[in-house]
């Protein structure tokens, strides 16, 4: 067997390499620097520099690369305008997430446990807390995960797609588990996520194997070319494709592969929840687009109805079940399931419209999501000794927030309106372009259902606004809520709120970005 060394375009891979390199360096820092405070400073600085440098190189690349883009690794990674756009989106959202990860309260308390190995409530844990230990692995782990996602959105080969999927998933399983408060809930969430995620990965891998067995090909371009040769109903290929879809839909959090979402979103430390809800969902959507319009769409396998069914079920279930939630994090989790459904609606449309509309939708949704979870980190319970307690998740505790913290409540209301797709917010434009994409190819029944789901969803978004503005604050001790703004979260809330408004009022500059990037390069042979 001959081994041919892959041809690698290192420059085109620069953004990914920077992020992964910084992640590796961060792991080294963990081992070498003993003083927690110094280590933390270094890790945050390293992550920030890496993200900015990667973003700068993405911008530089997108200026220089045009036309079909660059084949970065032997037809396995395509650095084109589409993948650069997604890498840019991921990096911007990651920069905002970093602010949440690094955020600390006045008493220097982060969202993460000081000593993950200590069992919850143990003496070790109390000791670690008193000694001011800090868990800083979360920064390199998040960078490694991000690097995996950046590869995930650029790859054009099924095996590498799987590798990238695992690359970004494994660090997530860890950082889900390390919440500072309600640790058992977090650990349970991590185990659930890991087990279900491993299962979904296995299904995905099985699908890849089946496709390989049938076609002896794993590259998108080659599979696409096989279209002419294979029959439209080759069972092996069909089952393989469906399994691949299942793996991606799991990461997207689409029904019926959504069961992990509420538990994991609730249990994970809120910055991690924000990171997952915004970035992982975005990356999954991007990869799904590439797979769908890259080759599945072309083979007349009639997989359309699966996507339609999943989209309808996702939108309706996400919206309806969210109505019944009493925890803000679970409500936002179900809302994010609903949004996965809205993203899927675009798949009913023609390729170029779907690509540009999903990118815009993810930007709008990602900004509002980060903002909303940033607000969640700010609304805390008050402990008996008057210090800040855990986050106040029960919806009842949010009553009267509009009076107590008008700016925070106004920002939250704005994010909710954007989720609901009310005009003059980014969410409306997102919904509009996604619906437009679907209608363009005759998907109006899907859009009609999407609209019904939006109306249902609007109900629970509005319910929270009612609570914040029109309900008096609870005055019993049990429900006492404290808001002490922290720097990082405040910046995130401000930036995302402004961006949500700006993208709602003058979205054309971002729309032209996403439209320019709506070119899928697959047929590079």
């Amino acid at each position, binding site marked *: 067997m001959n081994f041919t060394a892959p041809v690698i375009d290192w420059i085109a891979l620069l953004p990914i390499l920077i992020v992964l390199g910084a992640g590796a360096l961060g792991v080294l820092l963990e081992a070498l620097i003993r003083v927690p405070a110094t280590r933390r400073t270094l890790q945050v600085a390293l992550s920030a520099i890496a993200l900015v440098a990667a973003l700068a190189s993405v911008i530089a690349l997108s200026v220089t690369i045009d036309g079909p883009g660059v084949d970065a690794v032997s037809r396995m990674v395509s650095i084109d305008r589409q993948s650069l756009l997604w890498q840019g989106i991921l990096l911007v959202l990651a920069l905002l997430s970093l602010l949440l990860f690094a955020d600390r309260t006045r008493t220097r308390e982060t969202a993460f446990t000081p000593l993950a190995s200590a069992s919850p409530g143990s003496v070790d844990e109390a000791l670690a807390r008193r000694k001011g230990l800090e868990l800083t692995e979360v920064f390199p782990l998040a960078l490694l995960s991000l690097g995996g996602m950046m590869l995930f959105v650029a790859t054009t080969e099924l095996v590498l797609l799987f590798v990238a999927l695992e690359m970004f998933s494994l660090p997530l399983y860890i950082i889900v588990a390390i919440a500072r408060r309600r640790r058992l809930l977090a650990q349970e969430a991590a185990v659930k996520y890991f087990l279900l995620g491993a299962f979904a990965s296995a299904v995905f891998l099985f699908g890849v194997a089946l496709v390989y067995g049938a076609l002896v090909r794993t590259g998108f371009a080659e599979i696409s070319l096989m279209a002419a040769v294979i029959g439209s109903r080759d069972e092996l290929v069909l089952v393989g494709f469906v399994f691949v879809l299942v793996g991606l839909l799991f990461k997207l959090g689409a029904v019926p592969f959504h069961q992990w979402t509420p538990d994991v979103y609730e249990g994970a430390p809120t910055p991690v929840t924000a990171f997952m809800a915004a970035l992982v969902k975005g990356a999954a959507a991007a990869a799904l687009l590439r797979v769908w319009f890259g080759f599945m769409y072309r083979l007349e396998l009639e997989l359309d109805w699966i996507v339609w069914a999943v989209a309808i079920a996702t939108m309706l279930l996400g919206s309806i079940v969210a109505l019944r939630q009493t925890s803000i994090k679970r409500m936002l989790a179900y809302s994010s399931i609903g949004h996965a459904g809205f993203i899927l609606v675009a798949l009913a449309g023609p390729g170029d419209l779907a690509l540009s509309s999903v990118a815009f939708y993810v930007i709008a949704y990602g900004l509002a999501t980060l903002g909303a979870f940033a607000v969640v980190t700010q609304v805390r319970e008050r402990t008996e000794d008057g210090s800040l307690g855990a986050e106040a998740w029960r919806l009842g505790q949010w009553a009267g927030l509009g009076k107590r913290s008008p700016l925070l409540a106004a920002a939250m209301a704005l994010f909710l309106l954007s989720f609901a797709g*009310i005009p003059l917010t980014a969410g409306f434009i997102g919904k509009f372009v996604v619906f437009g994409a679907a*209608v363009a190819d005759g998907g*109006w029944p899907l859009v009609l259902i999407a609209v019904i789901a939006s109306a249902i969803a609007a109900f629970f978004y509005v319910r929270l606004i*009612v609570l914040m503005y*029109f309900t008096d604050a609870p005055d019993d001790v049990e429900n006492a809520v404290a808001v002490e703004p922290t720097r990082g979260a405040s910046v995130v809330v401000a930036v995302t709120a402004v961006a949500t408004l700006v993208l709602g009022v003058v979205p054309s500059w971002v729309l032209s970005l996403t439209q320019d990037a709506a070119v899928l390069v697959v047929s590079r042979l």
Partner: protein
Amino acid sequence: MPLLTILVALPALGGLLLLTVPGLRARAREFALGVTVLELAGVVALLVGFDLSAAGDIQFAETYAWIPQIGASWALGVNGIGLSLIVLAAVLTPLVLVAGWKLPDEPARAARYVGLILVSQAFMVGIFAARDVLLFYVLFEAMLIPLYFLIGSFGGEQRRYAAVKFLIYSLAGGLIMLVAVVALYFVGPGGEQAFLIDSLTGLELAPVTERLLFVAFFIAFAIKAPMVPVHTWLPTVAENARAGTTALLVAVLDKIGTFGMITLCLVLFPNASRWAAPVVVGFAVLSVIYGALLAIGQDNMLRLVSFTSVSHFGIMILGIFAFQQTSVEGAALYMFNHGLSTAGLFLLVGFLIERHGTPSVTAYGGLQKAVPVLAGTFLIVGLSALSLPGLSPFVSEIMVLVGAWSAVPVAVIISVLGVVLAALYILLMYQKLFTGPTPEAMAGTAELSLRERVAIWPLIALMLLLGFVPALAIQYLTEPVAAVLAIAQGVGA
């Protein structure tokens, strides 16, 4: 000079300043009144600059690219119909502010109230001037936000419930319309100005498509208008919101429904409009009678007045869907006149509630002797609502009924019954409130103050003026209505 954009931006900016700058709170009412007076001056400039000989054409047109990628433009412009409603909004807003001057709010709350009123005014002007369907839709939906907070934050016990009910109804209608708006892009010519009303006029749509689109738009407008059977949000809102809020809502904002029917439904989907006309007229007549009957049965004055509006909106919609020059003209005129008369009624009811704290008719009695000026004012405004000759609503109602006669005689005959019922519910209310012996509790009622007179009497003056010289208003409406009907009656009429 982009006068219309300025007229949209001025109250929007003023409102946002009031909502965000704490320094303005101490003088919030004065500031807001200043802004609305400035706005009124701008609208007068609009009125002066309007070329009456071309009232049917779009004037003061502005078109800027807004979101060219999806074919949306910032396109404003008015013909006579849009202009008349902008005038109505500009006249009523300062009066509502004056009427609500003494509401017992702490400064921060007062600033929020008037700030939200100003923001709503910006939306009203924008909607009546919008020449782009997407812009219209965006403003139509976004307007719900200030209204939602106006209803939910200020008013009676059940205001939260009312606000949510209002929002759910409006949002449901709006989202159905959204599907049609999205679809319009693809059935239209496309391109960077795809959503201009001009680009979308005269499309040769397949009948089924056109009908579906029409129905989607019409449902949204019928909810807004409000029309039986989707009117139930209005009494709830009227009962619980502040009288000033309701006055603006019913007098101006609900006109967006009928305005949309004339300028969008009839123009964009002429064949479907004619196809649907019999059903629409049926529901319109139902609204006329049902609204009037329910009004008679109400004890709560706010609910009563809101049901009279349901009845009156029925007459407007009857006029519009009769497709006759006189009837549509009458409907357009009625939109203006009904605004004057119903706003007056709501404000007066608000004054009574401020005095005695209850909207229940039976709690009052014999006020005529205690407060003759208030009684007289109430009587005149009430008579305008029952369309007494000499007051402006009479002219419009007659135009609708006479105009529609040739097209839908049966509907007209039944609707005339509604006019008779109007006399009943207004006079019964007046009788219970003002006549008879004066109970102990009513004797000390305060007379209409100077401020309150300033808020109401301009409306009466306008109603008298337009009652005797209706041509002043009609001349603005004849040509635009003719233009709409030329399209609506199109081929095969």
